[in-house]
């Protein structure tokens, strides 16, 4: 066994973290010495109702959010007020540790002994064992749309009841990180045997910090503290009420009135309401925080006119990113040229180091017009751009701002509003005629922003990029388990992508969140693992 690389964490760091988390679990009060956690209370939280409860049958984040209260993963990310929103340091959850072979292909995962499933049928409090992990991985590989994020698994063995050995066909750097994603939770096979699948709320049976106490379709899900949760002392809350109130103004009104503690699934409040909110609820904390969903204008690079890099580069030159950030976003955001989101600081290559590609990120309308003329469009051009306006008014404004920028260089962006179903199964997956604009999904590992967007044949490769050289680099970065080697390849990918401008990344704002003043140790997080985020929260009323 050799060095283990999980994001930025080396093997020693990882094991150290494992130890520290074990200590947190053993004595939670000591960690937060500055404020004594209090047990008890009900957290009222605006949530989202999922289309299904089967985490392997959907990419829906609503399912991941609600499932994470009950079903747990082998590892999880650090949570709490002292950690940043994009701090994805993994710590043990159902596993104690993982060792990786020298060639990066074999992972030996030691499970935490004594973890018990809930004390109800069909699991009746039995111990979680390696066979459960094997069953869950095999089911994910067979059914999950995210299965490719597990790498190419060749075999899963269970040498004993607390050990799982996973053999990959090739080294796959994001493997351990992705084990902490809530879609990758461990499921008890008895539930599928008894109920046929995990679609219904009744199938929400796990070994997490909470148990599902009640589910009222269209109203709420109530989670109660799991008395047999493996992390002693956690969670602090007695209950979490996950309320399915859909109207945004109603959500905020309930929050202003103190009837709910967190007004959205991730605590977000609209940027436009911040000033009035501070006025009406001056004691509520308001926090701007980094968001990892980038905004992209995707092109049909497989056909004219966007198969000509000059056209794409001219589009990029039309955008005044500095002004966009300073004036429209009032400084609370990122100029971000993509593809790696700016808040992923450990991977993000500064513009100054992008080389040749950096020049396409400048604002230079004259050069843009010249390049369009050279590409055969001396009188400008019209481009149909699909989008889904339902993301919200802020997104609509951003697209209008982009259209305004392009108009300055003679490009008329003809905005085509699509219905959600059409957008998500069409434009979001690259099925559009000329261009499409919208936010990306949220990912926590850098690979997803590169491989999904640029690797030929990937469903999220919305710009239809088919570049052999890029494919080679994208595959290579997955194989490097050493962080420094992987970083070099990822740097090269960023330089290469910037030069070719396969996508136009537009600036985007930071999120702004608030919660009631009596909610303590709450930390905003770029993750759908809400259960882990709330297990460390307490109420100080």
């Amino acid at each position: 066994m050799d060095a283990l690389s999980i994001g930025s964490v080396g093997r020693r760091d990882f094991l150290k973290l494992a130890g520290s988390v074990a200590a947190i679990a053993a004595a939670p009060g000591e960690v937060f010495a500055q404020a004594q956690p209090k047990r008890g209370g009900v957290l009222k939280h605006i949530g989202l109702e999922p289309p299904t409860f089967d985490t392997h049958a959907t990419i829906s984040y609503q399912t991941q959010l609600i499932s994470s209260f009950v079903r747990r993963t082998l590892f999880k990310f650090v949570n709490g007020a002292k950690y940043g929103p994009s701090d994805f340091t993994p710590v043990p959850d159902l596993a104690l540790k993982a060792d990786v072979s020298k060639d990066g292909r074999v992972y030996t995962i030691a499970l935490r002994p004594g973890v018990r499933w809930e004390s109800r049928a069909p699991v009746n409090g039995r111990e979680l064992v390696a066979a459960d992990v094997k069953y869950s991985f095999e089911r994910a590989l067979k059914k999950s749309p995210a299965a490719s994020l597990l790498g190419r698994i060749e075999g899963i063995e269970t040498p004993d009841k607390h050990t799982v050995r996973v053999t990959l066909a090739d080294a796959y750097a994001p493997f351990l990180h992705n084990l902490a994603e809530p879609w990758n939770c461990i499921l008890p096979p008895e539930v599928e045997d008894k109920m046929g699948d995990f679609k219904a709320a009744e199938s929400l049976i796990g070994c997490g910090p909470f148990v599902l106490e009640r589910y009222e379709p269209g109203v709420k899900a109530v989670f109660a503290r799991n008395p047999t949760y493996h992390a002693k002392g956690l969670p602090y809350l007695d209950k979490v009420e996950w309320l399915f109130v859909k109207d945004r103004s109603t959500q905020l009104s309930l929050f202003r009135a103190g009837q709910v503690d967190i007004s959205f699934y991730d605590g977000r409040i609209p940027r436009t309401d911040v000033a009035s909110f501070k006025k009406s609820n001056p004691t509520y904390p308001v926090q701007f925080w980094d968001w990892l969903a980038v905004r992209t204008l995707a092109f049909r690079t497989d056909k004219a006119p966007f198969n000509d890099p000059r056209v794409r580069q001219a589009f990029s030159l039309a955008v005044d990113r500095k002004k966009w950030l300073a004036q429209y976003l009032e400084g609370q955001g990122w100029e971000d040229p993509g593809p790696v989101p700016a808040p992923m600081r450990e991977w993000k290559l500064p513009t100054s180091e992008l080389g040749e590609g950096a020049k396409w990120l400048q604002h230079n309308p004259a050069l843009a017009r010249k390049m369009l003329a050279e590409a055969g469009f001396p009188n400008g051009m019209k481009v149909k751009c699909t989008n889904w306006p339902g993301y919200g008014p802020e997104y609509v404004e951003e697209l209008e701002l982009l259209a305004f920028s392009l108009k300055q260089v003679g490009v008329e962006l003809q905005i085509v509003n699509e219905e959600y179903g059409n957008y998500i199964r069409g434009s979001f997956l690259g099925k559009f005629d000329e261009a499409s604009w919208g936010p990306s999904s949220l990912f926590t590992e850098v690979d997803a922003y590169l491989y999904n967007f640029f690797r030929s044949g990937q469903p999220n490769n919305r710009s239809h990029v088919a570049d052999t050289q890029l494919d080679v680099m994208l595959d290579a970065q997955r194989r490097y388990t050493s962080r420094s080697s992987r970083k070099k390849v990822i740097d090269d990918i960023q330089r290469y992508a910037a030069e070719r401008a396969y996508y136009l990344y537009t600036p985007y704002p930071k999120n702004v969140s608030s919660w009631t003043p009596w909610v303590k140790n709450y930390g905003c997080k770029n993750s759908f693992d809400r259960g882990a985020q709330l297990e460390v929260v307490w109420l100080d009323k």
Partner: protein
Amino acid sequence: MFRYSLQRLLLVLPTLFLVSLFVFAIVRAIPGDVVDMMLEQFQYGKSADELRARLGLDRPLAAQYVTWAWQVLRGDLGTSLWTNRPAALDIAARFPVTMTLSLLSIAISLAIALPVGILAAVRQDSRADYAARSFAVGALSVPNFWLGTLIVVLPSYYFHWAPSIGSFTSFAEGWYAYLGQFLLPALCLGVAQAGIIMRMTRGMMLEVLRQDYVRTALAKGLGGAAVVLGHALRNAAIPIVTVIGGQMPFYFGGSIIMEHIFGLPGMGSFVLEAISRRDYPVIQAVNLFVAALVVLSNLLVDLSYGALDPRVRQD
């Protein structure tokens, strides 16, 4: 009257048949195929053909319709493609919410519209009449979603108070609390309808109050209230009842918005989600159910004519 009722009942059958055809066809006219969506967004199956076959969507439309219609005739409204739950179960859970909201809205509409409409007619061109007519125009002009949003947003901003939303109380837990949570949304929904009914009441009452038999009744010494309520109102009632019956789709439609704003778990939010997921069996079940309700409410309106007007019974 029996023959009249029978005729109306028989007419319901072809209407429901046509409605079922329409519902079946219109669901499939929504852009976006459930198979594409399941495969591409949620990846429920391995291939489109396999999934289509599994869902029974590979057969000719006529065959699909016959299967579905036969299921419905046997009382099976179908099963959700996403949750595997029988649609009838969800409808049974959610229908009482929408029905309560609709009935309470109608009650509020009538409680406002009838007295105000009668008063405006009896005191035509008085200040009370002008005030009533102004109210009607105002009520018609205010969109119910705006009123609903205002009721929820303003008190929270200025007084840190909001209606109790997010904790639905069932009838079994207490009828008082159950009805209480519908009051504000029903008021929002009822006010606009009150404007329409009030105008209709006033207009019909004015017409009836000028009839000879009203003048005769007054001349014979009957009290004003007896004449207005016992004679005039009853004769003015048919168009008013017709308007209320015709508004049933509005109450169901309007309840979607109110359920959304006030967080009520009714049929509106349920069907909206089903549409966004292209959950054909659920969309078909809900639409057919609502269509049947509207047809039945119109039938009740038709039958009420007979109860209100003896001449209809004799015909």
